[in-house]
């Protein structure tokens, strides 16, 4: 194929390839999908619930009327009806809304009093069915009938005269009275949307409409209320908009900077066009392959993976520096000559990324595939296509002054410079003891702190449950899950008595297992003897209540209350954040208030399929796990790179020499972190790996110097280093601190590695004659 045909074919196919990448790829921006993975089935199901289930589709809206003031009922009524009419909003209700639940007490629960009155029936009946207790109960019934809730009590009492169905609710009412610390200046609501919280464009529209309806209503009613919001959709929207801004901003700034740099180094738009076309092909193929393997490509993969440019650009740059301005035949000969060094560099980089993929972070498996594909494609294109894209018209590159000066200077003062590097390295090693690991993953996103503060503020206005800590009960059937939960309630009662748990919110009294319901009914029917029935009638008479209508205690007819019945009632709303039903597995969440985690863990340790779950602890445990795995795999990767180089050079000295700039650059970076006290995370390790991978390439290129012209080789390395430092350096302008971290680590690493090469490596030969 003639060169012009090859390039014509390539430039025609490139837009098609980019179109395929853009239109067939499913892009994802959910940050939790990038960093969270469950270790077991329960955690995986829960993670998916957090990402797309009911919990993810809800907002908490909180209106603040100001100190000593109350939110007007008319305002709430009008605003709620406006919210309900927003497209995509399923329902909105007040957090203290109990009208539906109270109605369900009379319409649903009253007929199941015999089944639901207790979790410990013998003990409860022993307390209820004595003569004095029944007299008290009749007095209580009378008082309830005369109370503001008398109408509801009346409906229950005709079905369940002993009000057994309300027995379990006594505790829940006390719990809420104790827990509900909501001052009356706030009115809180839950808004549920149809689409997942991660469906950011739709959620952003809903958020805008919530704010708009509130502002309009506020203006019309001339109130000075303030609206606060929280919820997973809000975090998702903030993360995505931050990520989008970053990607746009960083892409623009790095493209401009790279263009200027290219023009400065190669002084040719034509050359820049060749290289950028190659890079676009590399990225398009990487996106397509990652999408094929994972089904989607995460925004963070593209953001981190785009730094791949810094690695992939090295190969065409080397070719350009060595072969620019040559005729095709000569070009191919030179490229063939330097290709083994490029291949070796690519292999060592690949090893680094495979190690990264094996570190366990779900997002990094994607990054590894993305960058791995990119490196292979870039290398192959550089070898087989790029020489045909180039023409002899472009000018040869003149070496910079510093490029000619620095290697010569290093050779002249080699031992002095080596001594200085050694002193610095020893000082660095001493500092390593002070190195700190980041233990809390939340520190990775300090830019979202304002949302976390708002979330905490709003949740404090509600019942003081610890949102990220709960007991997770699982089972393959809902009955098994409920039975297990009932065992857990008993344990939690003990922990509560011991003072290690303030309170907990399970599914009782709303739901009880069928097994427990049958036991309750049988125990009640056995315990209700004629004597107890007589006591009750006497008690009714003494209170002036109708014996004819309330004296017949017939609890034999009532049937079991099923979970499905409850889920079809208004009570479902109250339970939806506690029950996750799936085909293979069901989860039940027991919310906790203030507690001692160790005491809870100890109390639940021997019950199978029951876990004390702390979202934050899980994330931090994962962070530690990932860090440990990342350390092991990185060390293994480095050992493998060393072996590979030893196999190639068959000399330990040469191998160590080649690796030394990368290792010492890494050591100095680590020492700098230790000295400045910066807590390092898995992300620092990623940057560390990238810096090492790039610097090992420099070591190989400088060591092998296959073109035989050291100044040109070092010139190629300088161009690579500048592009890498620039591309990564641009990330410092990102809002996401994760990207800023990468910027600092890699930019410093490549500059250091580049400068250390002539000091630590003694190349084969030094020639001042250019190849062409």
């Amino acid at each position, binding site marked *: 194929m003639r060169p012009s045909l090859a390039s014509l074919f390539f430039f025609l196919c490139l837009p098609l390839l980019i179109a395929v990448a853009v239109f067939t790829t499913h892009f994802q921006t959910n940050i939790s999908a990038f960093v969270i993975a469950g270790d077991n089935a329960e955690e995986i199901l829960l993670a998916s619930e957090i990402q797309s289930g009911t919990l993810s589709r809800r907002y908490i809206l909180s209106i603040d009327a100001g100190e000593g003031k109350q939110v007007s009922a008319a305002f709430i009524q009008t605003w709620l009806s406006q919210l309900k009419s927003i497209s995509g909003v399923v329902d909105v209700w007040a957090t203290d809304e109990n009208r539906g639940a109270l109605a369900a007490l009379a319409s649903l629960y009253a007929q199941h009093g015999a089944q639901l009155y207790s979790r410990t029936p013998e003990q409860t009946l022993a307390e209820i069915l004595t003569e004095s207790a029944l007299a008290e109960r009749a007095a209580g019934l009378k008082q309830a009938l005369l109370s503001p809730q008398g109408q509801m009590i009346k409906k229950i009492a005709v079905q369940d005269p002993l009000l057994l169905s309300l027995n379990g609710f006594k505790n829940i009412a006390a719990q809420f009275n104790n827990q509900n610390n909501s001052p*009356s200046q706030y009115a809180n609501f839950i808004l549920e949307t149809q689409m997942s919280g991660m469906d950011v464009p739709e959620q952003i529209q809903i958020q805008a409409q919530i704010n708009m309806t509130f502002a309009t209503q506020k203006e019309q009613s001339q109130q000075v209320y303030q609206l606060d919001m929280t919820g997973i959709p809000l975090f998702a929207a903030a993360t995505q908009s931050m990520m989008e801004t970053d990607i746009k901003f960083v892409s623009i700034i790095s493209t401009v900077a790279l263009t200027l740099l290219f023009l400065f180094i190669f002084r040719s738009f034509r050359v820049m066009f060749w290289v950028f076309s190659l890079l676009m092909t590399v990225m398009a193929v990487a996106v397509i392959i990652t999408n094929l393997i994972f089904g989607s490509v995460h925004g963070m993969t593209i953001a981190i993976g785009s730094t791949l440019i810094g690695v992939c650009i090295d190969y065409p740059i080397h070719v350009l520096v060595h072969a620019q301005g040559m005729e095709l035949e000569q070009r191919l000969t030179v490229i063939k000559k330097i290709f083994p060094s490029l291949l070796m560099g690519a292999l060592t980089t690949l090893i680094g990324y495979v190690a990264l993929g094996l570190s366990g972070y779900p997002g990094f498996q994607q990054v590894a595939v993305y960058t791995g594909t990119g490196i292979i494609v870039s290398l192959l294109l550089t070898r087989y296509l790029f020489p045909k894209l180039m023409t002899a018209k472009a000018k040869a590159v003149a070496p910079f002054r510093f490029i000619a000066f620095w290697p010569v200077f290093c050779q002249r003062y080699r031992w002095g410079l080596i001594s200085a590097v050694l002193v610095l390295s020893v000082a660095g090693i001493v500092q390593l003891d002070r190195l700190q690991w980041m233990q809390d993953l939340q520190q990775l996103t300090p830019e979202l702190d304002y949302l976390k503060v708002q979330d905490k503020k709003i949740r404090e206005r509600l019942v003081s449950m610890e949102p990220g800590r709960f007991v997770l009960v699982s089972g393959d059937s809902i009955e098994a899950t409920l039975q297990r939960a009932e065992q857990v309630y008993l344990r939690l009662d003990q922990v509560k008595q011991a003072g290690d748990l303030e309170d907990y919110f399970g599914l009782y009294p709303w739901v009880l297992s069928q097994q427990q319901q049958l036991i309750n009914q049988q125990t009640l029917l056995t315990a209700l003897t004629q004597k107890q029935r007589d006591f009750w009638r006497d008690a009714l008479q003494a209170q002036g209540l109708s014996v004819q209508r309330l004296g017949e205690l017939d609890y034999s007819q009532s049937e079991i209350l099923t979970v499905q019945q409850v889920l079809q009632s208004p009570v479902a709303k109250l339970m939806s954040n506690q029950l996750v039903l799936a085909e293979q597995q069901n989860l039940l969440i027991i919310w906790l208030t203030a507690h001692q985690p160790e005491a809870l863990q100890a109390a639940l340790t021997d019950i199978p399929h029951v876990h004390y779950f702390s979202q934050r602890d899980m994330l931090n445990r994962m962070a530690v796990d990932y860090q440990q795995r990342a350390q092991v795999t990185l060390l293994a990767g480095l050992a493998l790179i060393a072996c590979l180089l030893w196999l190639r050079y068959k000399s330990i000295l040469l191998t160590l020499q080649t690796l030394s700039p990368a290792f010492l650059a890494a050591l100095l970076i680590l020492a700098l972190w230790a000295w400045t006290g910066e807590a390092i995370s898995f992300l620092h390790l990623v940057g560390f790996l990238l810096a090492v991978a790039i610097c090992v390439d420099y070591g190989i290129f400088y060591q092998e110097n296959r073109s035989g012209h050291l100044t040109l080789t070092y010139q190629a390395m300088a161009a690579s280093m500048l592009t890498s430092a620039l591309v990564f350096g641009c990330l410092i302008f990102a809002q996401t601190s994760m990207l800023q971290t990468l910027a600092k680590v890699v930019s410093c690493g490549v500059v250091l590695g580049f400068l250390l090469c002539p000091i630590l490596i003694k190349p084969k030969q030094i020639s001042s004659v250019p190849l062409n």
Partner: protein
Amino acid sequence: MIKKIAVVFLLSFPVASFAQESVDSVMARMKPDIAVKIAYQEIRYMGLFDDEWHGNGYLYAEIPDVMLKQQLQPEVEMMAAEGSQLSYSKPATQTFHQLQIDESNPMMASLSAFKGMMTGNLVYLRQLYDLKFIASEHSWTLEMMAKDHDEGEAPVRIIMQGLNEQAANKMAVILPDGDRSSYVLSQPEQGLAIKAKLAELLQTLKGH
């Protein structure tokens, strides 16, 4: 003579029509300048009770939106509606509740109606009830039928009565199942002392 009687009769027509009560005139009269206190006696007729139940106490109200029912017999109880919030306290059993007023709850409906009447808030009453006003020569009757009620259930009905030129002196609340309460009301007392007393009672109620 007949002619004179006829003239007097004809002349009395406009006078009589001027004296005719309307819902607006009744409500205007009920609306207190500062705060108001009415003594009441209540009799409840309930299907689940063998006998009728008797209670008495005071109703307090203050514009724009506060109402308190202080039951003195048979047991001390207090119930207050401030805005949309209902507070209930029964010191004997140390019971205290605070909840949002649900006007569809018949037991709360009477309290809402009292609040509307005693604060002269016709707009509020019209939001919740269909009003029917009947004026006769000596008295007036205001029938209120709740707009919000469950399907298949009769709406709550509240009937207020009073003598012309006077505030209400009787009220009946008829619940969907036929249970009902009748109130006999004294004529209202007004003034700053009542306002102070109401504030004191509200404070006691919130302090349980």
